[in-house]
C-alpha cells in the first residue's frame, strides 16, 4: 500500500484548501494510507475522514520550549528531535509539501526514507530546491500576481499531481457540532429553516484585509430592516469587542457567536446560514466547504483570484482603485479600497443571492467604483472569477488570460490548446475590449517583443549548454541579464522568476551534475515563452484588424 505524507502547517483556510488534494490523492492512489501533518491549533478541523492519520504539530509548544532561557540548546534539540524522529524514520512513498511554510520544507528535508517529494527542500547550497515544475509555478505566483488567474486550490492540486473528480473543499461535520449549532439556534430563537440568517465575519488576520466595522454595522442594520434577515456575527474570542461595537452601531438586534464556537461548531452554524458576508478569512473557506453562498469583500493585499472562495457562484467584491490589491508589504494610509465598497452595494448582492435567480436585476450603475466577480469553473475544471459586468481591462488582466491558457496547456490541464481567436472571444464575453483597446494595444506589442528577447536568450543558452564548466558559467551570464530584464518588465517576470527558481534548486550541486536538469528547465521554459508569444502576436494582429475594420 502506498504511504503518502501531506505537510500543511498553515492557517484554517489554507488547510481547507488542501482538502481537494487529499481527495485527489485517495482517488489516484487507492489503496493508500494518507498521513497529514497539520498545526495543532487547528486540531478541531475534522479531517479524520479524509486522511488515515493526523499528526498535530505543536508549533507553539515547541516555540515556547525553544524560548526558555533556562534550557540548554542540547535539551531544546532533544525536544525538537522528539517530534521529528518518529516521522523521519518512517517510509513514505510520496510526500506532498503544501506551501508555503519553511517549517514544513525543513521537515520534508529531514525525512530519511522519503520516495518522491513534491515540494521544497533544502539544497546542498543551503537555498531552496523546488522539486517539480508545478512546484516552481506555484512559487512564482505570489511574485507575479499581475498576470495570475489561478486559484491556490488548483495550484495545490497541480503540485500534488492530482485531478480530483469533484471541485470542492471538504469539511466533514460531526454530530456534536451539529447538536451545538441546534442548541445555539434554539437559545437565540432562530429557526434556520424558516429564518433567513446571514452571517457576517468582520474580523480578519490584518487591518488592511478588513472592510471596517462601521460598514459591517450598517450592512447588518440594512439586512435586518430591509430584507428581514437575522444577522449573525462570527469570529474568534479576540474579536469580541469588535462584535460588541458592531452590534451597538447597528442599532438592531444581532446575534453574536463570536468567541463561542470551535471550528467544527462554527462550520455547523455557517451551514445553517443562507449567506456569509466576509473579509478574506478562514470562515470564508469554511462556508465554501459547507456549501453556504459567500460574498467575499476583497480589500488591501488580498488577491481574490488566488485565495478567493473555491465554490461555484461565490461573489467577490473588490475596489477598482489603481492600488488594489496592494503590495504585501505596503503601508496604507487611506484605506480607499474599503471606502469605495458601500454597504448598499453589499445589500443588493445579498438580495440577489438570497432571493433572485440571477444578476439580471442588478445594474452596473449601482456599483460604481467597485468590480464584482462570480466564481465559476471553466471547461478544464479550473476555478475562475468572471466579472458580473463587462468592465474594461488592463494590459495585465488581458495577459492573464493568455498566461492562464499557457499554464493550462503546459501543466497538463488542457489536452489541446485553444486558438488566440477563441481566447479573444472568451475575453470579449467578459470584458469591454473596445474600451480597453487604448490600454492594451501598445503594451501588447511590447510584451511580445520582451517575450521574444527572453525566448532568444533561452534558446541561445540551451544550445550552448554542454558538459563543460565554462558553458554553465556562460549560461549564468545569460541568466543574470534575463533576471534584470524580468525585474523591470512585469509581462515576462514570471518566466525569469521560474528560471531563477530552477537555478536556485541546483545551488550547491556541481554544475556539471546539474547540467541536464538545468537544460530541461530552460527548454521547458523556452517552449512556454514561444507558445505564449505566438499567441499574443496572433491576438494583437486580430485585434488590430478588428480595429481597422471598425474605423
Amino acid at each position, binding site marked *: 500500500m502506498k504511504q503518502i505524507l501531506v505537510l500543511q502547517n498553515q492557517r484554517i483556510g489554507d488547510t481547507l484548501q488542501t482538502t481537494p488534494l487529499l481527495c485527489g490523492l485517495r482517488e489516484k492512489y487507492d489503496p493508500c494510507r494518507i498521513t497529514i501533518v497539520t*498545526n495543532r*491549533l487547528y486540531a478541531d478541523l475534522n479531517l479524520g475522514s479524509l486522511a488515515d492519520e493526523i499528526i498535530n504539530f505543536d*508549533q*507553539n509548544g*515547541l*516555540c*515556547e520550549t*525553544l*524560548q526558555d*532561557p*533556562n*534550557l*540548554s*540548546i*542540547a535539551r*531544546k*534539540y532533544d525536544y*525538537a*528531535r522528539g517530534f*521529528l524522529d518518529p516521522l*523521519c524514520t518512517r517510509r513514505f512513498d510520496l510526500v506532498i509539501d503544501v506551501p508555503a511554510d*519553511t*517549517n514544513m520544507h*525543513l*521537515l520534508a*528535508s*529531514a525525512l*530519511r526514507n522519503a520516495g518522491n517529494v513534491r515540494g521544497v527542500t*533544502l539544497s*546542498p547550497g*543551503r537555498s531552496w530546491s523546488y522539486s517539480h515544475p508545478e512546484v516552481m509555478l506555484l512559487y512564482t505566483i505570489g511574485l507575479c500576481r499581475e498576470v495570475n488567474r489561478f486559484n491556490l486550490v488548483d495550484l495545490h492540486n497541480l503540485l500534488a499531481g492530482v485531478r480530483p473528480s469533484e471541485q470542492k473543499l471538504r469539511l466533514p461535520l460531526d454530530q456534536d457540532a451539529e447538536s451545538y449549532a441546534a442548541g445555539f439556534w434554539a437559545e437565540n430563537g432562530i429557526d434556520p429553516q424558516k429564518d433567513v440568517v446571514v452571517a457576517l465575519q468582520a474580523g480578519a488576520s490584518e487591518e488592511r484585509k478588513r472592510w471596517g466595522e462601521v460598514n459591517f454595522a450598517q450592512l447588518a442594520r440594512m439586512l435586518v430592516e430591509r430584507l428581514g434577515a437575522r444577522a449573525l456575527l462570527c469570529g474568534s474570542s*479576540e474579536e469580541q469587542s469588535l462584535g460588541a461595537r458592531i452590534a451597538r452601531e447597528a442599532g438592531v438586534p444581532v446575534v453574536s457567536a463570536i468567541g463561542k464556537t470551535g471550528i467544527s461548531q462554527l462550520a455547523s452554524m455557517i451551514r445553517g446560514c443562507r449567506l456569509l458576508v466576509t473579509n478574506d478569512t478562514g470562515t470564508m473557506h469554511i462556508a465554501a466547504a459547507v456549501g453556504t453562498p459567500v460574498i467575499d469583500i476583497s480589500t488591501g493585499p488580498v488577491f481574490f483570484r488566488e485565495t478567493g472562495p473555491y465554490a461555484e457562484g461565490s461573489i467577490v467584491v473588490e475596489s477598482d482603485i489603481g492600488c488594489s490589491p496592494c503590495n504585501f508589504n505596503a503601508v496604507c494610509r487611506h484605506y480607499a479600497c474599503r471606502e469605495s465598497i458601500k454597504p448598499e452595494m453589499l445589500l443588493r448582492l445579498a438580495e440577489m443571492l438570497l432571493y433572485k435567480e440571477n444578476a439580471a436585476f442588478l445594474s452596473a450603475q449601482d456599483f460604481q467604483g467597485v468590480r464584482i466577480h462570480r466564481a465559476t469553473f471553466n471547461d478544464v475544471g479550473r476555478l475562475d472569477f468572471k466579472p458580473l459586468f463587462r468592465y474594461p481591462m488592463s494590459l495585465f488582466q488581458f495577459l492573464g488570460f493568455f498566461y492562464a491558457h499557457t499554464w493550462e496547456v503546459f501543466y497538463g490541464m488542457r489536452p489541446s490548446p485553444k486558438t488566440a481567436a477563441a481566447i479573444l472571444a472568451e475575453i470579449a464575453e467578459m470584458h469591454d475590449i473596445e474600451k480597453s483597446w487604448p490600454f492594451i494595444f501598445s503594451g501588447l506589442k511590447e510584451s511580445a517583443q520582451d517575450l521574444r528577447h527572453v525566448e532568444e536568450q533561452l534558446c541561445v543558452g540551451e544550445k550552448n549548454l554542454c558538459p563543460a564548466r565554462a558553458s554553465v558559467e556562460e549560461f549564468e551570464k545569460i541568466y543574470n541579464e534575463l533576471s534584470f530584464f524580468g525585474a523591470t518588465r512585469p509581462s515576462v517576470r514570471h518566466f525569469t522568476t521560474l528560471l531563477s527558481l530552477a537555478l536556485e534548486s541546483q545551488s*550547491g550541486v556541481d554544475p556539471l551534475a546539474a547540467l541536464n536538469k538545468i537544460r530541461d528547465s530552460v527548454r521547458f521554459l523556452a517552449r512556454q515563452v514561444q507558445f505564449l508569444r505566438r499567441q499574443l502576436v496572433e491576438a494583437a494582429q486580430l485585434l488590430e484588424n478588428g480595429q481597422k475594420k471598425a474605423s
Partner: protein
Amino acid sequence: MSFFEKNLEILRQHNAGLAQALLASPASPSIQVISAKSRDLIPLAEGRALHSVYNPVEEAARFVSAQALGEARAIVALGFGFAYHIEELLKKSRAPIIVVERRLDVLRAAMESRDLEQILPALTLLHSPAPSSIVTNKYVADALGAGACPIVTHDASARLDPEYYSAVKLRMQRGIRSDTAKRLKVLVVSPVFGGSWSVAHYCASGLKDVGCESVFLDMSPFHQALKYLDESLKNTTIQPRMSELFHRLLCEFTYWKIRQTEPDLVFFLAQAPVSTELLSKLREEKIQTAFWFVENHKLFPYWNEIAPLCDCFFTIQRGEFFSKLDVLNAFDHFYLPLCCEPSAHRPQELDAQDLARYGSDLSVAGFGYYNRLHMLQGLTDFSPKLWGPGWNRSSALAPFIQDSGADFDVETMVKIYNASSINLNLHSSTYATGVEPDGDFVNPRTFEIAGSGAFQLCDERSELGELFSIGSEIITFRNLQGLRELIRHYLDHPRERKEIANRSRQRALSDHTYRLRMRQMLECIYPADLLDRRTVRLDHPDQVSRLLAEMPAGHDLQPLLKTYQPDFHVTISGLIKDLAKAGGTPAPVEITLRWMENVLTQGLRR
C-alpha cells in the same frame, strides 16, 4: 589648625582623591566669600550669591522642609555650596546623602570658610562625577531599585552649570524608568561598511553573551547602493547633495528601526548613520543612547557634533580627548579599549594548501597606510606578504602584494595570522614615516592577533602597557632598526614566539573579549544590581563545557561541540553556520537546528 586643614583631614579618610585634588587646586578669584546679615559666611560665584545674603540657615531650613523626602533610602543633593542645606538634610533624614558638586573652587572655598567636621563624615561627596556614575553608586542604585531616591537640587549651585546638573538629573530619572523586570534590550547600530562593522557585529553577539536581548541593526545592505551612488556621481556637483540625502535617509531608517524595536539602549558604532537631528529626537523621546567611537579623534572630528548629544560616549583614547569632551559638556565619556571575539579570532590548524597560500616569515594584513608603505620598504629582504588594499603597486613593495591587493574576510585574516611566523602590527599614521611618536590607542588587530594565538610585533603605544604585559605578552618596537633586530631574533626562536603568543592569547581571553567589554560598557550605564536583574546569568546553559558535561555519549551535537573552546557559548545560528561550512547535502543535525531556528523566528502563532 585652619578650617581647611581640619576639613581636609576628615575628607581624606573618606575620599582621599578629592582631598588631594582640593589641596592641589589654587584658590579661585571667581569665588568671593562674604558675610550674610546673620554673620554666616556665604560664597559669591561669578558675582552671584549661592545662599541667602540675609540668613542662609533659615533659608536652608525652609528649602529642606519644602522637599518631598518621604521614606527616602538615599538622597542625592545636586550642589554643595557652603552646605547649609546639607546640614538641614542631615537633620531631617537618616538616609545616606550623596552630594554632587561640579565646581572644585566652590568646594575649596567651603572647606576654607566653614567648619564641616559634623557633616563630612555623614555624606558621600562627589566632585563632578560622570552623570551615569551617580546611578551606579551603591546607595543610589539600591534606592533607585526601591523607588525611594529623591533628588534635591540646590538651584543656586545648579545655575552655575545647568547642562551638567540636568544631565545628572536625567540619568537618575532614567535609572528609575529602566528598572523593570524585562530583559535589557540593546539595539546595536552598525556602519554601512568599514572596520567598525565587524566590531558592531561582535558587540551584538557580546551583548547576547552577557544576557541582554541584543538586536543587530545591520546597515551593510546599503553598501551597494552607496557605492553605486558614489561611483555614478563621481566628480559631479550633485554628489555632495546626494550623499547628504542618502545619509539622511539612513538616519531616518535607523530612527524608524529604533521605534520599531523599542530598545532600552541604542548602541552606535563609529561611522554608524547618526546625525544631530536623530540624536536630539532620541533624547527628546527619552531613548538612551551610547556611542563607541573606535577611531582616532584627531583624524575624524565628527565626534564634536555627536558626543554632546549621546548619553554615554565610549572612546579608545583618553587624556587630551577627554578634556575636549568635557569642554563640549559631553560628561559621560568612558575609556573602552577594543578587544577580540574568541569565536572568530582563534587558533587554527591549517592544511598544507592554506599554509602554502597564507604562510610567510613576516606578514602585514591591513590597508597600506602612509607609514606602512614607508616602513615596509625597509623590510623587503624578509620577503613579507602584504595583504589587503592600499599597497603601492608601482613601488618596491609590488612583488610582495598578495591577491593583487584584494580585501579579505575575517576567516582569511585569521588564517593569515595563524600561518605567519611574525605578524607585523604597525598602527596606521598619515604623517609619520614609521612608528607614530605620540601614538596612544591600541588597534583591534592587536587583540585579534592575540586572540588567534599568533605572534605579533607591535609598535609602541602609550595605552598598550595597561592591556598587555610588554615583553611577556607582547613585543614592541620603536623604529625600523629595532624592528629588524626583533624580526631576526624571533625568526630564529620559534619556541619563544609560541610562548609569547600563548600568554598573549590567555590575556586576551581573560581581559579583552567583546563579552567582557559589553559588560563593562553596560556597567558604566546601569547599576550592577539592575544589570543582574535584567540580564540572564553569565554561567550560560549553552556554554560548551556545560553542554558536553550534561549530554549523553553519542549525542548528535557532541562531535560539533567538541570543536569549540570549553568556555564558548554556542547559539543555534552559530552552530548552523559552522555546520553549513562543510557543504554537501545538509545533515539531519543541521536540518533540525534550522528547523528550531525557524520556529523561533516565526514565534508564537495565534
